[in-house]
């Protein structure tokens, strides 16, 4: 199988939500010597990006998106262990969590998926994450980006506390911080000193990819 064929096949497997196919083709790409980083970015992630655009344009919906993301992760499970962890191919680190969660933390999962799709290694803290845990995880994993979300207005204060925690530990400027969730406005993001808030997952991922470029490489040393 040609490299192109494999890459396109990976994209298609994600678009069609074919989990097994994505995993098989990923293995095949390794067997054929395709650079796993290329297979993820040009193959799997591209499929996810196509689906995300379809979702924004109301041509695809949550069922299709979740099927696609399952397929993407199935492929990534095979490929990621083979990606070199240093140099230009090194993955940027995302620490993501919800200060409060309910059924709608599907939004958070989508952000995680799209961030993974653009090349982040996601450290998912889950939902109902205590303030201190965000701060600790950021320091421990040398985060490049932190994403904090909430769905409940009553827990918006906790976002401020995470920001305060990062500040008092002196690591706030080591990473970019994006906040999100139904009650979050741009004004609120500015007020608490976050770098951005975006209304959809793909936009958030695009923003994050670009934003990390301005971080200095040695800042965690």
């Amino acid at each position, binding site marked *: 199988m040609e490299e192109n064929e494999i890459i396109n096949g990976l994209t298609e497997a994600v678009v069609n939500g074919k989990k097994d196919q994505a995993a098989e083709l990923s293995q095949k790409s390794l067997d054929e010597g395709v650079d796993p980083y290329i297979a993820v970015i040009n193959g799997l992630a591209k499929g996810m990006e196509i689906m995300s655009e379809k979702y924004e344009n*109301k041509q*695809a*919906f*949550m*069922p*299709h998106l*979740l*099927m696609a993301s*399952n397929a993407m992760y199935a492929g990534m499970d095979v490929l990621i262990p083979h990606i070199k962890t240093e140099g230009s191919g090194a993955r940027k680190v995302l620490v993501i969590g919800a200060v*409060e*969660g*309910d*059924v*709608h933390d*599907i939004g958070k*999962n989508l952000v995680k998926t799209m961030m993974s799709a653009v090349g982040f290694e996601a450290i998912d803290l889950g*939902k*109902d994450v205590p303030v201190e845990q965000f701060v600790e995880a950021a320091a421990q994993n040398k985060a490049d980006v932190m994403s904090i979300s909430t769905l*409940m*207005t*009553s*827990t918006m204060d906790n976002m401020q506390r995470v920001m305060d925690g990062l500040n008092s530990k002196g690591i706030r400027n080591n990473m970019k911080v994006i906040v999100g969730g*139904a*009650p979050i*406005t741009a004004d609120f993001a500015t007020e608490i000193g976050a770098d951005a808030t975006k209304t959809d997952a793909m936009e958030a991922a695009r923003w994050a990819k670009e934003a990390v470029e301005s971080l200095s490489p040695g800042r965690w040393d």
Partner: protein
Amino acid sequence: MDEYTPKKRLALALRGESVDRMPAISVTQTGTVEQMEACGAFWPEANEDAEKMATLAEAGHTVVGFEAVRVPFDITAEAEFFGCEIKAGTKEQQPSVVGHVIKSIEDIEKLKDYDLSEGRIGVVCDAIRILAGKYGDELPIMGSMLGPFSLAQHMNGDDWFMAIMTDEKFAFALMELTTEFNIAYAKKMVDNGADTMVIIDPTASAMLIGDEFYQKFVVPAHKRIVDTMHELNVATVLHICGDTTPSLALMESSDVDAISVDQNVDVATALSKVDSAVIIGNLDPVSVLWKKTPEQIREVSKDLLAAGAGLLGPGCGIVSKTPNANLQAMIEMAKGHTY
């Protein structure tokens, strides 16, 4: 003599019939900290004890001035009833569903026998009975429940969104369970004195699942609930979060009397999308009702009324920290509006 009791006024207004003026109500949750402090019934106890639930619901009328009483204050009693793990709420925060109980069609079978007098389902019905005993002649007694699609999602987790696409047999079976439950629960609320039924089905959004799945799974379920309520002469309101503009016609096809729209919906546009459903809404519960001043709230209300809102109200559940004065500004604007 006032020809219209608040009860009669709302009953007529929800059906689009003529009344002397707009009723001042909220179809979404009404509990706030200021009311808790005024009446002595606090969350989380007021979510679990019928007397306290009724007391806090009553405060919406006696303390704030809503022309109705409404229970409960959260949307987790239904999932809890079926055994989903719940994260407890606090004084300021509603409980939330964190665990799921259904993975397969066999799991559904196991949950088919239930007793509606149990759990918080029973508590809500008891609270309704208390409220109806005290205010039933005068005020609308509003019961609210999580809708069948969102309940299915609570029970099955995020896999639910894929199940509706990949496993129709399972999806229809689970919808059957939740819809039957909703019908029985709504009837029980009505037996206890509820005269208005609010269906809150946040994840049943066509924006999330698309028109095709909405039509297939959601509309028939809502229609069965609505038909049952109509047989009992109970008006129905449907609330779905998010920008529901493109799917309002589909939502209305379940024959609900009124649709409560989120702050992301433009009221005038919404009106152009429905045939006869009353559009309720849609002050932003956070950036307007909670954060703005009464004066600003009056301004926003004025615009919504001018746009044709059939009932002025919050776009989603009222935030627990919302000041009374802010709610009263909205109430005053509703009361001052003639159709």
